[in-house]
């Protein structure tokens, strides 16, 4: 059964008296346990789409079915309850946390709000979550500001999986990390997916990151979906100009002594 179906979704913003179509008639589906990479340049509408999906922005038109329910029709307590099943990890994790929070309180909130485990078992659950994302249990007492960027991203992932979601929206979730840490976070995400069958909608401008973890890819340009298909197929045989430009822009590591347009020293 399809986990998520986005149908003919549109959103326009007013800018300087003009109407700008940020998301224009987008339709996408996501299966359980699948990763869909959503790629596009700045201003292509990919973050707007993610925000509509997270119910942070209203849509102008279109429908979203999530776990076979009308996701855009949910409100109030119903929406809050169902949010447990759709979590999000942002790029700027420090901005996504209360700066005075401890690691334990960051993980305690979703467990309490969504009543995942009884109060007496929460400390043990927090330790288990930390262990699952590769952090020692004694990190629970640290301030969220004291831990490194990579560790903070692990905590954001622990918070996202705390409510046992079926879908996590990853919005540029590894873009701010050093490359040596980035790979390990991507490995952790893939492990969690294989273990728990979570689906990911991975939004990024970095095609190389999406290549590592996505089964399928959707390319956006100026609010429209220009191309969608299996990751390998799109990379090997892109059809749209937007996809070709994104593929061409991925830096290649040149390890041979350069020839060609080098200058005289």
């Amino acid at each position: 059964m399809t986990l998520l179906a986005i149908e003919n979704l549109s959103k326009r913003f007013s800018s300087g008296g003009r109407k700008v179509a940020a998301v224009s008639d987008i339709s996408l589906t996501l299966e359980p346990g699948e990763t869909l990479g959503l790629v596009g340049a700045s201003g292509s509408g990919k973050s707007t789409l993610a925000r509509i999906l997270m119910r942070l922005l209203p849509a102008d038109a279109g429908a979203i079915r999530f776990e076979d329910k009308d996701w855009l029709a949910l409100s109030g307590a119903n929406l809050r309850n169902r949010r447990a099943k759709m979590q999000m990890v942002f790029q700027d994790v420090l901005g996504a946390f209360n700066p005075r929070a401890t690691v334990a309180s960051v993980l305690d909130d979703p467990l309490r709000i969504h009543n995942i485990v009884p109060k007496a078992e929460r400390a043990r659950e927090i330790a288990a979550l930390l262990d699952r994302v590769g952090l020692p249990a004694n990190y629970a007492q640290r301030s969220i500001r004291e831990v490194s960027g990579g560790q903070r991203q692990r905590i954001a992932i622990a918070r996202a999986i705390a409510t046992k979601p079926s879908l996590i929206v990853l919005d540029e979730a590894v873009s701010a990390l050093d490359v040596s840490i980035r790979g390990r976070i991507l490995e952790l995400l893939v492990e969690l997916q294989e273990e728990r069958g979570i689906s990911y909608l991975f939004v990024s401008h970095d095609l190389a990151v999406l290549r590592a973890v996505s089964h399928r890819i959707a390319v956006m340009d100026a609010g429209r979906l220009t191309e969608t298909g299996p990751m390998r197929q799109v990379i090997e045989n892109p059809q749209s100009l937007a996809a070709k430009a994104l593929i061409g822009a991925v830096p290649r590591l040149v390890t041979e002594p350069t020839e060609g347009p080098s200058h005289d020293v």
Partner: protein
Amino acid sequence: MSALCEIRNLSVTYRGQTVPALNQIDLDIVAGERLAIIGESGSGKSTLARALAGLLPSGARLAGEMRWSSGLPPLPGRDLGFVFQDPSSSLNPVLTIGEQVAEGARRHLRLSWKAAYGGALEMLARVRIPEPDKAMKAFPHQLSGGQRQRVAIAAALAASPGMLIADEATSALDMVVQAEIVSLLDELVREAGMTLIFITHDIALASGFADRVAIFKDGRLVESGLTGLVLSSPKEAYTKTLIASHRDLATPPLIREAAL
């Protein structure tokens, strides 16, 4: 091949810190070269850029030497241009694009406003801002991030400095715009015979156009040399790790894919 600057035993410690941000660096900057300074967060790469530009915050302690071939440190704006990561904080929000690009030339080349504006218009065309005459009258917020970075480059080059430092100048931009800005920088410095110091966390990006690379980690220079040599036969374990961590579209994915 002559050294524009010989950096010897350079250490920088910020006020209130005990651990130096830059620790006993020896490095030559060759006139006319494109040198990439590569490192992850906390490596000291931006500290080196700021030390070279004389832009360290007050209270920073500097030890060792930077011997400039001219005998004097370069004057920022005139001898040295600087492009920062975030153009929205390096551009003045209440001045027009034209004023900001013209200002450097007016001040350092002692041009009249009229002549400086003429130069600014030309610079905006060279960095390929569409409709440069309209852009002259625009304010930074009216441009996209990529266009703002082109303006910042135009402003940095307005007084025709001999050296340009780009500190993560493309990191906040999306990949397509990043590729355009890198090729623009490469072309501009090549045409003008300028020295380019390109600070980046992205070893692959640097590998495409730098003549030499210097790899930094935790405030120390790990290794440096000709780009092709360092990348094809790295001596240090850290350089090997950086190369191994690089992912591009040819890297095998982490997931199992269904056969096509």
